[in-house]
């Protein structure tokens, strides 16, 4: 097949990247995190509990991390000066006439004057790697989502609920504004929540899988933000037995599992879009039983329909298995 230009472009890119000198930050306007603690004690205390703060305060690896709070909120010299001037004026009983201190500091969230892109730019100073390498240009970036739409750094954790709608999955990441990662996604993808309540579903509501089991929401070069190159490669992560190669392959199965399955939940068994035999008859309409409608009580219909006999429908390695019966 065709030769892809990807490796050449990638090699050039790596060469340029290693050649480019690292940028240095101007440190003259920084005041240090202790100054933040003076006025923003609650926020400081909550931030101090995070892993990020532990790295910033106790084990910084570069100049940016050494800046602590100001690594994200920007140099605070003018902010502090304005705030102190305000405090002095208040203490003297004089009306403060200067600019509000808030305009000298970077703020995040819905009320921030910064665009989502500018807010994200602060986070990406450190996080534009790992799973975020492809954030720029991704579906969520291009739709104007800010990192703080889905993550919080030093706000209160979501209120503890007495009863959970979905089981909380086991994860090291707890910086969500909601109890579970799935509930964050459901804000903009409400139909997925409905689909997960169907009788045939993957174990997401049981807390054994999350949206991130299949999707990299931070950007992926793959379709639908999948963690693997294709739908099938994603499914093979948990179902490697269906990977093959097989002697007898079923081409629609090999190309895309979604030709037959609805991954987010179905009211049909085995996450099928439609029950056999109609599912199979979407394609198989030829001589013999595939072309016959069949009664509801027929052996071609009850139980699992066609796969009562053609059970090796995902591929067969038997020399006598060309009809997926062996």
């Amino acid at each position: 097949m065709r030769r892809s230009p990807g490796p050449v472009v990638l090699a050039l890119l790596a060469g340029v990247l290693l050649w480019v000198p690292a940028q240095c930050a101007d440190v003259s306007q920084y005041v240090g995190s202790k100054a933040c603690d003076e006025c923003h004690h609650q926020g400081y205390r909550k931030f101090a509990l995070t892993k990020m703060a532990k790295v910033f305060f106790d084990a910084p690896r570069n100049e940016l991390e050494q800046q602590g709070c100001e690594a994200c909120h920007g140099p605070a010299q003018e902010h502090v000066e304005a705030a102190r001037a305000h405090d002095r004026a208040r203490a003297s009983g004089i009306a403060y006439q200067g600019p509000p201190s808030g305009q000298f500091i970077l703020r995040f969230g819905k009320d921030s004057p910064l665009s989502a892109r500018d807010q994200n730019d602060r986070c990406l100073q450190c996080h534009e790697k790992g799973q975020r390498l492809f954030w720029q240009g991704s579906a969520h970036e291009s739709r104007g989502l800010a990192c703080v739409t889905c993550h919080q750094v030093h706000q209160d954790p979501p209120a503890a609920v007495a009863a959970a709608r979905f089981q909380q999955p086991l994860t090291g990441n707890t910086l969500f504004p909601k109890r579970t990662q799935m509930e964050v996604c459901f804000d903009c993808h409400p139909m997925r929540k409905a689909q997960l309540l169907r009788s045939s579903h993957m174990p997401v509501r049981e807390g054994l899988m999350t949206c991130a089991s299949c999707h990299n929401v931070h950007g992926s070069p793959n379709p639908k933000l999948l963690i693997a190159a294709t739908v099938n490669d994603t499914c093979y992560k948990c179902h490697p037995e269906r990977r093959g190669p097989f002697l007898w392959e079923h081409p629609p199965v090999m190309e895309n599992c979604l030709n037959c399955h609805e991954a987010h939940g179905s009211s049909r068994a085995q996450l099928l879009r439609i029950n056999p035999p109609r599912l199979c008859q979407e394609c198989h309409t030829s001589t013999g039983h595939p072309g016959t409608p069949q009664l509801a009580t027929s052996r071609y219909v009850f139980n699992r329909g066609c796969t009562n006999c053609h059970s090796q429908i995902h591929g067969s390695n038997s020399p006598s298995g060309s009809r997926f019966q062996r």
Partner: protein
Amino acid sequence: MDTRTIKKPGRLLQPVLLLPLILLKPALYAQDANPSIGDVEIGLRTLAGDRSSSQFNEYRDITPGLYIQRASLDLEHLFQTNYFLTFQTRQSWQKDQRFLGTFGNYGKFSCTARWEGTPHDFTNTAATLYTMTSSGVLTIPGATRTALQSNPASLPQALAGATPLNVALTRKLGGGSCQFTPSAAWSFNLQYSHEAENGYRPFGTTLNNTTNMLEVPEPVDYKTQEVQAGVEYGTRKGGFQAGYAASLFGNENQALVWDNPFNATDAAGSASRGRLALYPNNNAQSLNFAGALNLSRTTRLMVSVSSDWMRQNASFLPFTINTAVANVPALPANSLNGRKTAVATNITLTSHPLARLSLTAHYRDYDYINDTPSLFFSNYVMTDSALANLARQSLPYAFNQQSIGTSATWLLHKGESVTVGYEFVDLSRQHRDVADSREHTGSVTLDLNPKKWFSMRTTYEHAQRDPQTYVANLELYPQGGNPALIPGWELYDEAERTRTKGGTLMQVDASDRLSFSASYDLTQDRYNESLYGLLGYRALESSADVSYQLYNNVSLFGTYAYERYKSDQRSRQYSASNDTSNNDWESYIRDAIQTLSAGASVSRLRNKVSVDVFYSLSFAKGQIDNRILGNPSLAGFLVTTAQDYPETGTRYHQLTGAVRYRLSNNLSSKLQYQWERYDRTDFQLQIMSPSMSLYDSGTKTSLFLGGDVPPYQVHILSVSLDYRF
């Protein structure tokens, strides 16, 4: 095989095992610095109602008695150093248990170990005459076979001795990973996991064409090992990643052999046993490279290349286990030597040349190369009974998909933008009906945010897929024997398709207390050049969600979703002498699903009490209506079975109420009541029993598991203590 007996030894001892977590506190951590370093929730549960349905515990393990819902331990600055240790568990010592432990040094490294169990119950109503006597070999006592061979009508008597079994799988995964970050820019990672999947799965087999349809419990004994290693370098200028991954899948049962209960002696055309190949061992390895470079402050180039190598070379089984079948040809090879390579290349360029303008362009090439040899089989044995007298050729299906697309977003002002996009996909396939097809997709999206409290996103997309030519591929049957082809019959995944999608999402934050959102999406596929097969598909999905904060500590919520799916397909009941459109028939498939949930949450009532109540209902209905298109009075009319199928449906109710009471600063109690009810109407499953001859006389010499997923109604009452330390 597992029977229905459920035993849970040692449950009372389980909480004791968590005591060390609590005892660790004074030794390792100064309490004053952080009042809580962990918690544990232990409870007692009782159940009432019928919970025998596999649907109840499909992916979970809710049983009466003592349980540990969760526990966690978070030791920061271990021994006054920068080391940390965390531990979490959920549903401990249950089938769906989870354990996760992490040890590391802030900013330097972290190593994680995990253990996960995942049950999957298929059915609890099955019963079988089979016993697994050795790996992958299912046998039935000779006396039973002899009796059934002489008198198949005695099957009901024989089934009195059938063994009930839970047809279920369990996955157990253990693994570990380490990530080293010697500097903020560099990181290295290693990962290993081992997963064992064991149990049984309902499995359909057939002997002697469809004379003996024999559903058996397929023994599953899979082991999968995965290894990953990677390196990454990243700065504000860009970064690159390189990784290697290997996945090794092993199946302890390479073949399934099962007895024919209705025939104890092999004969040509009548097999006493069957044998088939289960999933063979396989392995896959991959190399991944990705890089990104900020070409300027506003432009970023991202590239990824990954190559996967999939291999499978398990020995072939002989054509048949039936020794009475004569003139069986020699196999063309001892094994497949299956070799596939998938190379994915992605290049994305994104730029913000103006403050209001964002541009993105991407190119993707996915090459699915199949170097598996094509093998010619001059003949084969059908269902272990007789030679098929057909030649078959295995085909190395392969495809290449290239796509190029671009999108431009113009920012009207903060939160408001318009985006237009275009994508072109070229898909070429080997050994399929359509060698090359092209698809053009155009889309426009409008994001509106006229008020701070109101936002709306509307999208419209139109796609046109055109196969260059549609020619049925007949290579599978190199010496004839093809199924009849009806003119105008096209496989829907390759056929010409017009796809239209539209959707809108509206979010209203009417006040600090009230928020509302609604969505509406419509998808329509038309296969205009297909006269047979799938003709069209239409999906409507809509939802509304409201939440209201009555007081600072009281919130109410409600959601409703409605979905409707429709598809139409046409077929022909064919016989060589009556290949006319008078035997055409159509099927109309309709699904409607409604999902409703509502609840209330009260937190920190008098700083002591939290209350949660919620209810949800998922209600699905399915219809399959069938209609003849011909005239029954004309000669040669065949279509006598095109009758509407009975309506199917499922209802899943869940009602939960819980009260959490804070007994002290670090101890709280919880009382929870749950009611779950599942109803289903499924004409395909609810009639199932091991003998199905009452419904289809053609199954007098067949045997099924009788697997159903019946309704259930369960009340669950639990009390638990949550201790924070």
